[in-house]
Each structure stands twice: as C-alpha cells, then as structure tokens.
C-alpha cells in the first residue's frame, strides 16, 4: 500500500486521477501523520480544519469534473508570515497574537485557486529574523532528522513539515536564506525566486528589497510546479513582474554543455565543515560527469556580504516594524497615560530579543550622523556584490556551492552569539542582495544529517536553476526523502 504522506505532487496527481484515493483521503493521511509526529517536531503553530475540509471537498469535485491541474488536492503548509483571510497569522510574534487578516495574500490565493489544500500555519523565527526557528515567539521547531537539532530558519516549520511528511509542499519566505538554509538542514528542496517573480502582497514584510516567497517540496519538479502557480505580475505588488517563467520547458534537458561556476570564496568560507565540503565536492563531480563544464569564478566581495546585509536588512525592518503600534491590530496595553507610553509598552512586551536587536541596529544605521557611514555605504557595497555576480555569470550559466556551511546544529548552540547565527546565511544572502533565483537540493549526508547543494542563476533564470537541480537529482540519484522518524 502506498504511503500517502511520502508522495510527490506528480505521483499524487496521477493517483488522484486514477481514483486510487480521494483528495479527502490524502488530506486525512497527512492530518493523521501530523497527529502522530508533530508533538515532537512542532512544525506547526496552528491548524486550519475548516479550510482543509472545504478545500478537499472542492478538490474532489474538481477531479470528478476532469480538472487536470497538478495542484488539485495537494496538501500544503503555509509559513506564519503569509496572510490568509480569517486565519490567525502572527509572523511568529506575540505582538500579532490573535491577528486575523482581512484578506489573503496573492501567492496563497493563487495556490488556493490552483486547488491546493491548506493544512495549517507553520512556525518561524519572529518576523522571519533568524536561522534556526529558535526566535519564534511561541516554541522552537525540531529537525525531523534529529529532534535535538534545529531545522534551520527562518522558515524552519515549513521545511520540517515537508521533511517529516506532514505536508507535501509548503510555502516559505527568503530574505537572506530563510528558504534555502532550512531546506538544506532538513533534506528537502527549497527555492527562492528572483526578486519580483512572486507577488509579496499579503506577506508581512521584513526587508522589502530582499524578501521573496518560495516553495518547499520533496522533488525539484514539485518546486517548479508550485513556483509556476504562484509567479507573475500582480497589480497589488508594483515590484512583481511578468517576465517569462517557462520553467518546465527545458526542465529535463540536462547539463551537457552548460558551464557551472565554482566560486573559491564560497568553498573556503569561514566555518565550512569538512563533511559539507565533501558532499558538495561529490555533487560537483556528479554534475561534471553528467556533462557540465566546471569553471572557476570569482566573487571577490563575499567577505563583505554579511556586513552589508546586516545594515540593509535591519534598516528596512526597523522601518517596516514601525507599524506595530498596538493601535490598529495585535497586542495592546490598556493603561498607558499617553501615546508614547502606549507604543513603548506594547513593543517592549510584544517583540522578542532578536527583533529588538535588529530594530535597534537598523534605527542606529539610519539615524542622523550615521546614515552615510552605514546605510549608504552598505548600499554601495550591495552594488559591488551585484557586480561580482554579473561578472561571474559572464563565465557561467549557474553557480554551485554549499547552501549552508554546516549541517543542522544542536538547539541552543548559537543563541547566545548573534554573529555566529548570522554566519549561517553567509552563502545564501548574496543571492538576496543581488536579487537572484536560488535553489537548495539535498546532496547527501554528513554525520547522518542532510547537506544542501545551492544553485544560483542570473535574474529571471529560474529555468536554469531548476534544470541544473533536476540534472543533479537524476545524475546522483539523491532524492529528498521523508526523514527517518518513527
């Protein structure tokens, strides 16, 4: 008997059409698995039974009508930063406890229209600020491969849900690596699209020039299917684009004749583990054996990426988070004597340590007398980093490297030292600063924990990133599997 919680979209869609099982049965199988496992994994913050019942019924009716859409009836989890009308959405923060959005964001509503069935809301670092999901204002999430370890972050709940077989697909957001890094640590596929590929309408903003919504899945093809359903111009996000996104056309064309860039700076980055290096070296060899030409490229400003990022992202967040004032929604204090006291009391109680740290850092960098030295300087360095990638892509079609310098680390290992946590994203944040599409695919294990291979492509070339990822998946035989969890 097929285990309904270990299928990919492609397999599930075929079996749904053959009436091997119904969409309602597919959802029930996932709900039962959640009931069995999520007390230990804690991927979810809340469940949405009223939605999954209605959407599964609707999916079954669509299938009866002969609707062949690939996402009809597919069980999905949604990160707690994406607004869904009437569903409590809190960005992992106490300050938004009880907030029920009056509208549904574009990416989610497009997936609903395509027939996906929402299971619930997944845990994340507060306002997506973190690399371990330990900054959640509710509880940490546990890595399905080793429950004593973090799932990565900030979209750790979504990565863990897909890894544990609790959801077939999930949505995350990636501002500095928050999809790719947890995908790597949980052994699943995670993709950050080009900035502007997916509408951000209905996403609770962290850093608006860096944020992108993207999919988690257990195969490269599934990630491509979800991306395709979400992508495209939306009148509600002025930065969204209608550039062609034909990601499945040359999906299986392989890498023969493609040039894949290997940046030395990424392979010798501070703190990279030897087991990670070995798994990635093996992946590079598999791609070479599959016909790719491996070329050296340079990203000379890599050492400055983290510094530029930790000015730009906090500066944007300090501005975005000014809206949480206790007046229009969320947490509020009853007994304030004046408006300033109301603001400060609400924000003192509502925001956790990492959010406060970044709001202060950003406020400092933007404050009078420091703007030129920090914010303007960081924006100029962003130009240099973008130029690094432009230069590299003159020599190659895509850049391959590790996604994270380390495998999943023990819960608590980095919480006392913010800089060590920030270094988790040292290989991913360049993609955000330059607006590139990037994907992480599983490339084996180190000490029985998953390692991720990152593929970065030029802007708007999701098709290239997915084609290389697919070629690797085929050539290596390494597939995203449901974690070996009781």
């Amino acid at each position: 008997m097929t285990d309904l919680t270990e299928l990919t979209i492609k397999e599930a869609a075929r079996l749904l059409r053959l009436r091997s099982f119904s969409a309602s049965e597919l959802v029930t199988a996932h709900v039962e698995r959640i009931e069995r496992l999520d007390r230990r994994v804690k991927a979810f913050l809340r469940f949405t039974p009223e939605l999954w019942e209605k959407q599964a019924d609707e999916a079954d009716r669509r299938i009866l009508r002969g609707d062949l859409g690939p996402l009809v009836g597919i069980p999905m989890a949604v990160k707690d930063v994406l607004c869904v009308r009437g569903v409590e959405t809190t960005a992992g923060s106490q300050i938004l406890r009880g907030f029920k959005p009056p509208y549904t964001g574009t990416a989610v509503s497009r997936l609903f229209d395509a027939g996906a069935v929402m299971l619930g809301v997944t845990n994340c670092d507060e306002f997506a600020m973190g690399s371990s999901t330990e900054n959640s204002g509710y509880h940490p999430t546990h890595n399905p491969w080793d429950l004593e370890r973090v799932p990565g972050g900030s979209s750790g709940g979504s990565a863990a849900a897909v890894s544990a077989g609790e959801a077939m697909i999930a949505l995350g957001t990636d501002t500095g690596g928050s999809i790719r890094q947890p995908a790597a640590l949980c052994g699943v596929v995670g993709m950050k699209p080009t900035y502007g590929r997916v509408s951000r309408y209905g996403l609770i903003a962290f850093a608006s020039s860096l944020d992108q919504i993207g999919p988690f899945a257990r195969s490269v093809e599934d990630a491509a299917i979800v991306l395709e359903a979400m992508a495209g111009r939306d009148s509600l996000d002025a930065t969204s684009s209608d550039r062609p996104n034909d990601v499945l056309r040359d999906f299986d064309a392989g890498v023969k004749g493609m040039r894949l860039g290997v940046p030395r700076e990424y392979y010798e980055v501070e703190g990279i583990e030897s087991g990670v290096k070995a798994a990635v070296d093996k992946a590079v060899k598999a791609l070479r054996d599959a016909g790719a030409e491996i070329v050296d490229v340079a990203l000379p400003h890599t050492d400055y990426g983290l510094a530029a990022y930790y000015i730009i992202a906090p500066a944007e967040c300090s501005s975005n988070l000014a809206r949480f004032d206790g007046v229009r929604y969320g947490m509020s204090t009853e007994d304030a004597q004046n408006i300033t006291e109301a603001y400060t009391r609400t924000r003192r109680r509502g925001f956790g340590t990492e959010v406060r740290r970044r709001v202060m850092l950003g406020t400092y960098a933007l404050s009078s007398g420091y703007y030129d030295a920090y914010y303007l300087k960081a924006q100029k360095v962003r130009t240099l980093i973008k130029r690094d990638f432009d230069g590299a892509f003159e020599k190659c079609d895509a850049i391959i490297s590790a996604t994270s310098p380390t495998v999943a680390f023990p819960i608590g290992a980095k919480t006392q030292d913010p800089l060590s946590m920030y270094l988790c994203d040292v290989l991913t944040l360049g993609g955000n600063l330059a607006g590139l599409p990037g994907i992480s695919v599983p490339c084996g294990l180190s000490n029985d924990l998953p390692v991720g291979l990152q593929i970065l492509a030029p802007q708007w070339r999701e098709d290239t990133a997915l084609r290389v990822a697919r070629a690797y998946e085929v050539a290596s035989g390494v597939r995203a599997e449901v974690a070996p969890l009781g």
Partner: protein
Amino acid sequence: MPLTRDEVRHVAMLARLGLEPGDEEFYAEQLGGILAHIDRLQQLDTDSIPPTAQVVEVANTLREDVPRPGLSQADALANAPAPVDGFFRVPSIQEEA
C-alpha cells in the same frame, strides 16, 4: 567597540522600543559586537560606486486612477484592540494644558 548606554537609550527611544532593566548593557555589548564586524565595510573604497536600493530594473508602475472597493470599515476595525464607535481608540497625544 560597545555602544555607549546613552546611544542604546537614544536608539531605543527613536524606535519606541522600551527597555527592561539590564537591557542597556546587554544591547550595548551585542550591538557593539555586530558593528565591529560591520566596520569592515570601511576598508572598501566606494567613492565612485553608486548605491543600490533595489536590484530589479522596474520603472514606476502606474494604474488608472479609478475608484475600486477597499476594506470595509468593519473589516478594518476587526483586529483593533479598542474600537470605539467606528474609530480606533488611542491614548491622548497631547498633554493636558
């Protein structure tokens, strides 16, 4: 170099964060540590480099200026901690004379 406690207080005031006892020392040290890393940006000569605010070349995106439905008053107020008669209630913003 750690920030001074005055700087932490000033930044917290600007961001309306409100500090707990012990926060001044805690954030002075932590922000100082992060800024020490960030200071490496000063090694780069960027005099002739233009700043980048966003990376995708999008020009101004305009739409027809025609009325369209927005949130209803009830929807807009549904999450308000203290709605009163169709308004958001806030504490006084001016001291009494």
